[in-house]
């Protein structure tokens, strides 16, 4: 079968189905066009139109998920024996594309609706109070792996720097040019961490050195690695995958 793009392929499939239905029916008795267009539903031959409709439903799914999200419900914690080692590497590039971030030169930039926007050195970040969690990382692709992360609850940090926690979004920019954003409710969830360590060690480069945002209530692509800037905003910031069509809320 020749390769058809989204929409076209579906239309082709459906047209074949309808054509054969049509053929059979016209052999026996005339069929009103009304019944046929009922089967055909909306116009699926227009690819941009389909894509547009699907994205609208996706943003409606964002709304539904925000309602389903319980700010105090915790993701399940696992015993240390469940931890997967080595923890899978996954990014939009291969392992040779992992950014080399220098600990000495690193500084975390703050922007947007935050009162104290002075950049943070790594040593100051490491001095923040830290907690440890052992939770399941679930990838949009379907695989999952239990890992252990330690770091500062993002809520603690946001309050500390005077972020406007009534704003809608918290966005992240990364040293590998990845970017993503989460809703404020999730940013304030007790298990949403600024993770500096994984499995007891300083966060290894493939897993996001020096800073990864660990969000156990969201899919893996909402857990940015190598984070170099955090901003708070009311304007929808999107994300690397989200802008290409992944659902934005991506809640678990």
């Amino acid at each position, binding site marked *: 079968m020749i390769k058809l793009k989204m929409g076209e392929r579906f239309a082709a499939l459906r047209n074949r189905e309808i054509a054969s239905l049509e053929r059979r029916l016209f052999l026996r008795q005339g*069929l009103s066009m009304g019944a046929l267009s009922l089967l055909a539903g909306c116009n699926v031959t227009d690819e941009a139109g389909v894509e547009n409709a699907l994205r609208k439903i*996706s943003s409606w799914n964002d709304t539904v998920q925000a309602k389903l999200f319980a700010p105090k419900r915790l993701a399940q914690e696992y015993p240390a024996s469940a931890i997967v080692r080595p923890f899978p590497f996954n990014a939009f590039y291969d392992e040779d594309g992992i950014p080399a971030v220098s600990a000495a030169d690193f500084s975390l930039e703050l922007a947007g609706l935050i009162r104290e926007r002075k950049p943070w050195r790594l040593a100051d970040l490491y001095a923040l109070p830290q907690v440890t969690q052992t939770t399941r990382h679930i990838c949009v692709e379907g695989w999952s792996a239990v890992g252990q992360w330690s770091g500062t609850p993002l809520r603690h940090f946001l309050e500390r720097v005077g972020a406007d926690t009534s704003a809608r979004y918290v966005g992240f920019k990364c040293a590998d040019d990845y970017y993503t954003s989460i809703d404020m409710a999730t940013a304030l969830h007790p298990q949403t961490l600024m993770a500096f360590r994984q499995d007891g060690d300083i966060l290894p480069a493939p897993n996001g050195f020096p800073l990864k945002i660990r969000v156990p209530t969201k899919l893996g692509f909402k857990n940015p690695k190598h984070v170099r800037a955090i901003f708070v905003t009311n304007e929808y910031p999107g994300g690397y995958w989200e802008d290409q069509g992944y659902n934005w809320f991506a809640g678990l």
Partner: protein
Amino acid sequence: MSDSRTEHLPASPMIHGRLVRLAHWVNALAFLVLLLSGWKIYNASPVFAFRLPGELTLGGWLGGALLWHFAAMWLLALNGLLYLGYGFLSGHFRRKLWPVSPAAVWADIRAALSGRLAHDDLSVYNAAQRAAYIALILGIALLALSGLAIWKPVQLAPLVELFGGFDTARIVHFVAMALTLVVVAVHVLMVALVPRTLLTMLIGRLPATRSPQ
């Protein structure tokens, strides 16, 4: 168009009401979209040691397949709830799908295999049909529940627990798809063998036949 003869034709009895027909075809469409987009999602990280034929999948890439899947799930769920509500409340299920005894189903399956299964009175489902339709309804219910579990494993943690964990819920979702698909295939095959039934599912009744005066 007026045809005086039509007035003398006996109306053939209604076999499938409008709501059942509409719900059936909306369901078939939603099922097809979920099936083909689901295969693409499966291929992104197969739970088993095989991939499904990529040419048959819907969505173009993982993100596109997910958009289709999470749109069609609403169509399937809302349409399914409407159908179930109607089926239970109106007595449709009690009248058409019940009772169904294993012995009768077995007898029908044997009759079908030897090509002798009767479906002459289209207003009554035989036992094999009843069993198949109940299996399809249960299959879709299992697909929806296991789907919810892997969509919202944190918010719906007890459901995930019920399925024995996230990874088993994924396997349940896949196996439920495969089993339901087998029943759908048999179902469509049976329809092909008795094509009159397709007409009734489309227009509700058989076309009026002229009876000798």
